């Protein structure tokens, strides 16, 4: 990827990270850690990868994203706002009464949200349904599903992986945000899903392991996925929970905690533009 474009994406990702902190700080609740870990991938999807038109969010031919780890919606809402689905001003209403920015994604009321999600394990199945509909209708759209590495402890996820492979959903790209942490601690201590690459391969996926914060890596994985026509793709994205805010990085308690005023100021000062 050219440096100019990479810097552009990096700056958008920084804006999205600032939006995430703003939302959670204003709401005094929400999930900053897992939102920050997917910020770069969400940026790439909404600003480079996906075939979408913010002025026509229900276009039947659009690419879709299902945020199966729905609690990370501050990242999704930030991307949608920055991409022009609605005003960034609305981000201030996140989690407040009468806002369409619900605590977890609501497809009925939020422009650009393709599937309601939040109860872990269900989004990936819905993504399979959307991908299957695309195949049945002979449409060319692609479906992206972002899951957490804690979320995949849900049995339904593996039912869905079996389904995706059985029905050759090559238009489905699963992204597993492997940040290594879940509410009760490290995934490897709470309930290990490793070796994940082997499991995904055994379930019939084309597997790519990437650095979730490297745009070259991200681009190369999505390009390969697009050219894989005989099976679904799983991108295992090694990420840092809380990425970009020093005191949140790899700290499990930032899964679902809002920063206080001082922490907010520090976070925002660390998320300045790169140029």
């Amino acid at each position, binding site marked *: 990827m050219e440096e100019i474009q990479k810097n552009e994406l990096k700056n958008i990702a920084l804006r999205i990270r600032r939006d995430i902190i703003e939302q959670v700080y204003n709401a005094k609740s929400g999930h900053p850690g897992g939102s920050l870990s997917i910020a770069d991938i969400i940026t790439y999807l909404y600003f480079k990868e996906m075939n979408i038109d913010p002025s026509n969010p229900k276009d039947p031919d659009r690419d879709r994203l299902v945020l199966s780890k729905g609690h990370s919606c501050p990242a999704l809402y930030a991307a949608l706002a920055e991409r022009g689905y609605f005003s960034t001003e609305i981000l201030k209403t996140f989690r407040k009464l009468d806002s369409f920015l619900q605590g977890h994604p609501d497809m009925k009321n939020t422009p650009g949200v393709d599937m309601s999600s939040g*109860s872990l394990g269900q989004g990936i199945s819905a993504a*399979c*349904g959307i991908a299957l*509909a695309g195949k*049945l209708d002979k449409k060319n759209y692609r479906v992206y599903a972002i899951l957490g590495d804690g979320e995949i402890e849900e049995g339904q996820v593996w039912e869905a992986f079996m389904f995706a492979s059985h029905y050759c959903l090559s238009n489905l790209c699963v992204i597993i945000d492997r940040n290594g942490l879940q509410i009760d601690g490290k995934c490897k201590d709470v309930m290990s899903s490793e070796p994940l690459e082997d499991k995904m391969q055994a379930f019939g996926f084309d597997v790519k392991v990437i650095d979730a914060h490297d745009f070259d890596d991200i681009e190369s994985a999505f390009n390969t996925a697009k050219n894989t026509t005989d099976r679904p793709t799983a991108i295992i994205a090694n990420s840092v929970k809380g990425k970009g805010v020093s005191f949140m990085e790899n700290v499990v308690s930032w899964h679902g905690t809002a920063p206080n005023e001082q922490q907010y100021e520090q976070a925002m000062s660390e998320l300045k533009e790169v140029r």
Partner: protein
Amino acid sequence: MLKEATRESYGKALAEFAEKYDLYVLDADLSEATKTKIFAQKYPERFIDCGIAEANMVSVAAGLAASGKTVFASSFAMFLAGRAFEQVRNSIGYPHLNVKLGATHAGLSVGEDGATHQCNEDIALMRTIPGMVVLNPADPVEARLAVKAAIEHDGPVYLRFGRMPIEQILPDDYKFEIGKGTVLKDGTDVAVIATGLMVGEALKAAEMLEQKSISAAVINISSIKPLDKKLILEYSIRCGALVTSEEHSIIGGLGSAVCEAVSEAAPCPVIRHGVEDMFGKSGAAQKVLDYYKLNAEGIVQKVLEAVSLKK
């Protein structure tokens, strides 16, 4: 008159209406039993077997519906309303998607498979979900019409079908409408409000009650949600005593729904006839129903109780 299990009517109706409507049908390795196989044989390209994975099936159905399709997802009531309750609530109910849940093998009339497969709790579970329509047809004629109504309704619908063959009790030209109850026999002393296969038993009970000089109305409530409150209140006032009858727990089902309706507007004694707070057991379907007094004699007993409570 026709005699068949409502699951059979369901499978046939899917195959019949798929000519006119662009339906997709999902099953979880039970198409032989749920009778969606009748559809699958005619429209294999619109049938998707999800394997023994109901949770995934329900959310896949949501994804298909989110892409504009009318989808039926089928399994036994136990696994659709029971096992996959939270998927139904969050993947289908919350976004109000156009998914129809075709639940067969509901209630005690599953018979030999016993308690693990006899779902007496599904109506209670499904009717608490906002926006969910809950239909429990009384006979093969109504089962077919309920499928058609579900297709034409925009939003989630739970359809409850049985395994045991039952007699046709409604006329061939019967009119079915979501949210409407039907008075099948009028009466003045008591009204028996029944649903599913208990409607036929209620008609028999009403005849038996004539011998005892008790005039019992029989009302078919196949649309448990939305409920025809107007009709129920009318009979609460007219008769002053109600008996509800269902092949379902007396907790949370039709009996509860009727009590909720009358207690808020026109209170009168309501006796709930159904499965008491207990599990079922194995046996031939009719024998199991008789054992739990889910028959005309059981209704007569409850009617006598209800009448004795009248002021």
